[in-house]
């Protein structure tokens, strides 16, 4: 039986140098940035429609306020409102949305409905730094302290120190932060009179000039102390428990035993071998937690009357001040996304096994 053997055409893939577009789309950072922009667009769209679905509207709220504050009749209040508000809330939503997007693309976040002539950008510029400062500082303190205490718990596993710290960690991480804030406020303030809550209000004392002076710095810390304390207290438990379990797992790794066999000093093993490897997964969580702390700041700033972006958001929500709400939601979204991006890029620096931006296609 004759077998026909036909030559099989084999086309060798040509060595193609990736063009600019291919190199770009394979680039990790580029892809991440595109994804981030897409996320921002989606969030902007969803918030735009969601806040307009809230019951009532800015004019109605203003009218109700006038009536209850000054005893105006409905008609008087309405006339006042139409004089003040040069906005047309009855315009089709789609048209409003496109207008908003167009302005946004030009960097225009619009003006506040309620404080005439106040740019939303100015509100953010004025109040965001305080929130960034208090939230950032507490996140740093809580992360570093949590890692340290978590390692201590793992090294002293099954000892009274471990039991005490584990109980503390589970307790503080299960109580909502606003509850802790109110309890602290009431107990340390009026009850024990340890802190003077009246003078701690705001983000700086009246009359203190901003500048690089010790006085200014201490005053800022004084006002931020309570919010920072509460943020740290409510987030540290999670870090401690995560670090504890991660450390326990790392202690079982072969390379730690081998490091001991190599006669390395305990301090070196603890930092470069156990600590460094055990803390890796926590860096991913760090990025996620930034979003949570921003969300939490809304309530905490309200409770301690801290002049941050969270308090402005509450005010804007109560007044249905759409542009301000949109602006603040946008800035929170951007912060969380940027933090995530930075954390991811940082992670690749910390863990050599993760290689980014090397043109790998996966």
């Amino acid at each position, binding site marked *: 039986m004759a077998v026909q053997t036909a030559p099989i055409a084999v086309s060798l893939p040509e060595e193609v140098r990736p063009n600019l577009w291919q190199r770009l789309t394979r680039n990790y950072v580029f892809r991440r940035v595109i994804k981030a922009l897409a996320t921002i667009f989606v969030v902007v769209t969803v918030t735009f429609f969601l806040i307009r679905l809230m019951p009532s509207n800015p004019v109605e709220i203003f009218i109700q306020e006038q009536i209850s504050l000054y005893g105006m009749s409905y008609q008087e209040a309405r006339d006042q409102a139409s004089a003040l508000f040069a906005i047309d809330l009855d315009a089709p939503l789609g048209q409003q949305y496109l207008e908003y997007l167009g302005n946004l693309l030009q960097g225009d976040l619009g003006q506040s409905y309620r404080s005439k002539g106040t740019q939303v950008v100015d509100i953010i510029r004025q109040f965001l730094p305080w929130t960034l400062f208090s939230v950032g500082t507490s996140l740093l303190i809580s992360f570093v302290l949590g890692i340290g205490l978590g390692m201590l718990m793992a090294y002293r596993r099954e000892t009274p120190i471990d039991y005490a710290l584990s109980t503390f960690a589970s307790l503080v991480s299960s109580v909502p932060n606003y509850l802790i804030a109110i309890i602290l406020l009431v107990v340390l303030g009026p009850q024990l009179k340890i802190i003077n809550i009246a003078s701690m209000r705001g983000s700086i004392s009246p009359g203190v000039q901003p500048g690089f002076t010790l006085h200014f710095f201490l005053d800022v810390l004084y006002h931020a102390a309570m919010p920072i304390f509460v943020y740290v207290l409510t987030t540290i438990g999670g870090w401690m428990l995560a670090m504890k379990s991660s450390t326990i797992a790392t202690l079982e790794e*072969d390379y730690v035993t081998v490091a001991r066999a190599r*006669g390395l*000093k305990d301090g070196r093993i603890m930092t470069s071998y156990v600590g460094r490897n055990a803390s890796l997964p926590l860096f991913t969580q760090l990025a996620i937690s930034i979003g949570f702390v921003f969300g939490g700041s809304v309530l905490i700033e309200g409770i301690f009357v801290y002049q941050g972006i969270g308090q402005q958001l509450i005010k804007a929500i109560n007044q249905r001040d759409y542009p301000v709400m949109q602006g603040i939601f946008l800035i929170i979204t951007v912060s969380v996304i940027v933090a995530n991006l930075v954390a991811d890029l940082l992670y690749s620096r910390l863990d050599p096994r993760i290689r980014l931006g090397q043109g790998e296609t996966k």
Partner: protein
Amino acid sequence: MSDLALLVEDLWVEYPARRGVVKAVRGVTFEVHRGETLALIGESGSGKTTLGLALVRLLPKAARIKRGRIMYYRNGTSQDILALNAEELRRFRWQECAMVFQGAQNALNPVLRIEAQFLDTARAHGLSDANAVRERAVELLKMVQLDPQRVLHSFPHELSGGMRQRVLIALGLLLQPQVIILDEPTTALDILTQRSIIEVLRRLRAQLDFSLIFISHDLSLAAELADRVATVYAGAIVEIGSVYDIFERPRHPYTLALTRSVPTVTGDMHPLASIPGSPPDLIAPPLGCAFHPRCPLATDQCKREEPPLERVGKEQMAACWHWREVNP
């Protein structure tokens, strides 16, 4: 006795477990001479690795050294390993006695470059001259047939399993220890890589002066590298002797069975025979001789009395009541 490097006397190691106490090492006695290679062979679960870990006192926390003595000799001085304090023990490890572990895949810190791991090992033992250490590392990596420049600047995950095993061997030699313990140095490697590791070890044995204890279940490896071989069964040494005696004239039925269970390349063709039964339970080892349930020569005496390790040849010892009937 002046060429003694390590002396282990009547060593007992136990682990508490839920079902009872695991007697992982039961009264082990042996010695290692300077420049000698001793192979500890036995099935998995026979206590070989525990024995190795006990020598550098790296046993898990739960384990207890119940009895025994480990003496280490160098330059006319002796050290009682079980009496060392934490700092003395730290210095002893790697500088005097380096243990290269089974499963080298995960034995190096994933976030540090190989160079950093050579340097921190040296620094921990008081060698602060980074350039000298680097030079020595380059030399050793060449000896284990690696490209030093590439390897030193790599992270562990960038190296293959065989390369990592060789890096570890080179790292083990960094401080010129007198004794090196290799635990299953070729397990988990493919056959060609195993071959090259054996070649590397042979070359190192010829070039450098150190004693080697290697722990393996691989008899061919023992035959190739060892001067003396000890067979471990149920946590005890059941036979010890020169590599020639052990392979040509084993006096313990277990050693005989082990040699029968691997094919030979050169020697006479004998039918391969696996050892019936399974390794003994170390929580409740059989009464009498631990091997008796699997032994073709077992008699009533074997079920009642544990045989002592007795001299059966010029330099050969075996623990069997019937050693005269094995290879008569």
